[in-house]
């Protein structure tokens, strides 16, 4: 190891010392860090909302916050986590890493890139300003019509929801275009599409998915705005509009959105697992191909969120069947990761720890997902806590565990310092325990009939114990994140210096200093295989002789 290490006194000055002006920067790395920091702030807020929700459900007949506040809390929590935490965090890593990984100096459109970030930041802020303006959105993150029509939602809270998401959605669309263009045209000489790191592959396909899925959502939001403000009747059932139309438009976006959050997470895992197993990824082509297949199928299954609205048997059957199909490419990926670990020389450092946690948690979420794709089961447990348990295993277990692996893996690249392994272990084990304690009991509560989005319940239902387990788990989770934030803070100030390539990794971002200069590379590297750094380090046995 330690091929690229500088002597300690040579560590490049930390980001802050280079006196960057964050408001005017066009550097993809600074914009990436802006994304990451802003989404961390939103994560703290969204987490706090979750804690209040759990506190409210701690005992039966609780009056801690009351019904209206409760509606605002779960709406803002869901909206925040999806739009202002997971997506922007992934864009942050994508922004920071993609130009480095493909040997480029910046994104294809640097100004548009900055614009995207600011749209996300302002869109999030606008949504939260509603708290000051008399009440936050309280209609759920799916904003089902006709509940969102003016007749049932008379204050401005729903307008804030629409406008805030429209603003951040414009930014997201711009990011998607930027990602796809960058990856298609900015690659270093020799880096064919069959040689880009899998994280880059998946971010590119993520951009493609966004370009398809987001416009219908934006259109729906504008239609709703017209309904509410100017008396149009798209979703107004009293005047011949269709409430189902909203559901179709929303879930045509909403289901792929799950994969938009999951694919980059898969990409992170596909980078971390090989490096920490000291083996090449097993079946690069099949991982990439499975990405495409997942993406395509995910565009065709949206109505599995609507089994209970009374579509025809035939429609139910088609969407159910298509949903089952997604298990195949996803299973192939799982198999590829496990085969990569199998027989490897495994280093259980923090990034790998979180990657393995991801594999286990995402598997559980996937299995309950298959159960929900069966129409008869869905009819039983739809809109119960079983579903809440399921999608948190997918979103939190799937996306967030992988994102945590990314933090521990790439923090040294961004700061030139390592995160503390000791704090990382505290974080990991508390998070794993807290996560399962929070979300596993929700499956049981759901099977016992507890509906989601209820602000309280009576003691004779038999749900109390499961809710109390969940609430204790949520507190544990909160503590685990304190370790994480503390680790980020102290390691950034005075963590052990990492050198340029602390993990003996193989992709191009580790070929420059940590943190990199504004322009990334003095000399654009020439790529001859999927592991350009391996080739440089092992000139007598380079990969391209084997490809």
């Amino acid at each position, binding site marked *: 190891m330690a091929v690229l290490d500088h002597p300690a006194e040579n560590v490049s000055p930390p980001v802050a010392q280079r006196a960057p002006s964050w408001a005017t920067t066009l550097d993809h790395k600074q914009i990436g860090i802006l994304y990451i920091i802003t989404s961390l702030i939103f994560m703290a807020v969204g987490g706090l909302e979750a804690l209040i929700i759990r506190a409210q459900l701690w005992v039966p007949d609780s009056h801690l916050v009351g019904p209206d506040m409760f509606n605002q809390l779960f709406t803002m929590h869901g909206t925040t986590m999806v739009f202002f935490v997971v997506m922007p965090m992934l864009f942050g890593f994508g922004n920071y890493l993609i130009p480095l990984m493909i040997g480029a100096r910046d994104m294809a459109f640097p100004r548009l890139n900055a614009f995207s970030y600011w749209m996300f930041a302002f869109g999030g802020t606008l949504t939260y300003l509603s708290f000051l303006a008399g009440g936050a959105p309280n209609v759920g993150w799916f904003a089902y019509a006709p509940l969102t029509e003016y007749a049932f939602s008379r204050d401005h809270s729903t307008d804030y929801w629409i406008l805030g998401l429209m603003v951040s959605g414009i930014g997201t669309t711009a990011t998607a275009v930027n990602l796809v263009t960058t990856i298609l045209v900015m690659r270093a000489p020799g880096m064919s599409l069959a040689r880009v790191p899998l994280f880059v592959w998946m971010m590119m396909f993520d951009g493609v998915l966004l370009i398809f899925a987001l416009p219908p959502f934006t259109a729906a939001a504008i239609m709703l705005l017209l309904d509410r403000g100017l008396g149009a009747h798209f979703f107004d059932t009293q005047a011949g509009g269709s409430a189902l139309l909203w559901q179709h438009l929303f879930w045509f976006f909403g289901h792929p959105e799950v994969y938009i959050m999951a694919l980059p997470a898969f990409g992170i895992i596909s980078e971390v697992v090989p490096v920490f197993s000291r083996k090449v990824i097993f079946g690069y082509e099949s991982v990439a191909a499975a990405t495409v297949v997942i993406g395509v199928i995910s565009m065709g299954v949206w109505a599995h969120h609507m089994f209970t609205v009374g579509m025809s048997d035939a429609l139910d059957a088609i969407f159910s069947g298509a949903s089952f199909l997604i298990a195949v490419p996803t299973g192939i990926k799982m198999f590829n990761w496990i085969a990569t670990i*199998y027989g490897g020389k495994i280093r259980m450092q923090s990034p790998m720890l979180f990657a393995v946690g991801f594999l286990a948690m995402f598997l559980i979420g996937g299995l309950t997902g298959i159960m929900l794709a069966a129409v008869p089961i869905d009819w039983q447990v739809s809109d119960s806590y079983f579903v809440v348990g399921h999608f948190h295993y997918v979103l939190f277990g799937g996306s967030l565990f992988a994102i945590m692996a990314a933090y521990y893996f790439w923090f040294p690249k961004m700061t030139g310092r390592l995160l503390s392994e000791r704090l990382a272990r505290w974080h990991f084990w508390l998070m794993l325990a807290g996560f399962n304690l929070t979300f596993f009991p929700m499956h049981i509560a759901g099977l016992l009939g507890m509906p989601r989005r209820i602000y309280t319940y009576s003691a004779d239902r038999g749900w109390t114990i499961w809710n109390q387990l969940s609430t204790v788990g949520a507190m544990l989770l909160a503590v685990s994140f304190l370790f994480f934030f503390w680790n980020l803070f102290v390691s950034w100030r005075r963590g052990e210096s990492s050198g340029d390539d602390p993990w003996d990794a193989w992709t191009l971002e580790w070929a420059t200093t940590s943190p990199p200069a504004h322009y990334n590379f003095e000399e654009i590297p020439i790529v001859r295989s999927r592991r350009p750094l391996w080739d440089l380090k092992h000139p007598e046995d380079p990969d391209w002789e084997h490809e």
Partner: protein
Amino acid sequence: MNSSEATMAEHGANRETIRMPIETASPLVVSLGITLLCAGCVTNWALSGLGAALLIGGLARWISQLLPGRGEEEHAWVPIDQRARAIERVDVAIESRPRGFIARMQVPAQVHPYSTGVRGGIVGGAAMAIVALAYGLVSGRGIWYPVNLLAAMLLPSMSEMTGAELEQFDATALVLGLVIHTIVSATSGLFYGILLPTLPRYPVLWGGVIAPLLWTGAIYGFMGVLNPVMNSRVDWPWFIASQVVYGATAGLVVVRSKKVPLRPV
């Protein structure tokens, strides 16, 4: 904007500076403008006015910087001692393993072609269908009964049917049943084919006996939720027999095919 050819060209000239876009607040101003424009709709139209002004101003500045020579500047490289050092060669030998072995090792080294798995799955599925049909005849419920039970997985309306109704021919159920059966057989076979070489030693034992028993156990546990109709009506001994026949047939097809070496990467 710099395409990679341009940077290579610059590099050929061996310059110590590089053209990068000038830092600019116009993206921030434009997006603040759009946000205020929207915020005005729910607060005060004056805000929208301010937003529109910012939007126009910011856009004008943004566009002006796209003119040739206006938006970029020469950027000096960082001092020599802060640049990435040239990457040094390292010895490939890792511990006592052969050179380069670990880093490129693929486990397993030899696999069955993917197509074999699918083929095995389809053959196994056919064998399984024969068992199921035999059950229909032997039990006197007729050959449509098992098909209808399978289709009930996707057709919620079938859960209300009586036993007698389930014995009748139903075209939709037949098509659905066939589709489910083919897809499940083929994809299970695919997994089978991929997984078998990674299992230790006795592939026939794994493929023919242990695996079918394992998944039948899993199905037994989950059947109540996966296919409640089937669960309440299934004849378990026959069901297990059909699973073992599937597993053994598919396993046999896969195991008897020739393995190919994995292309090392």
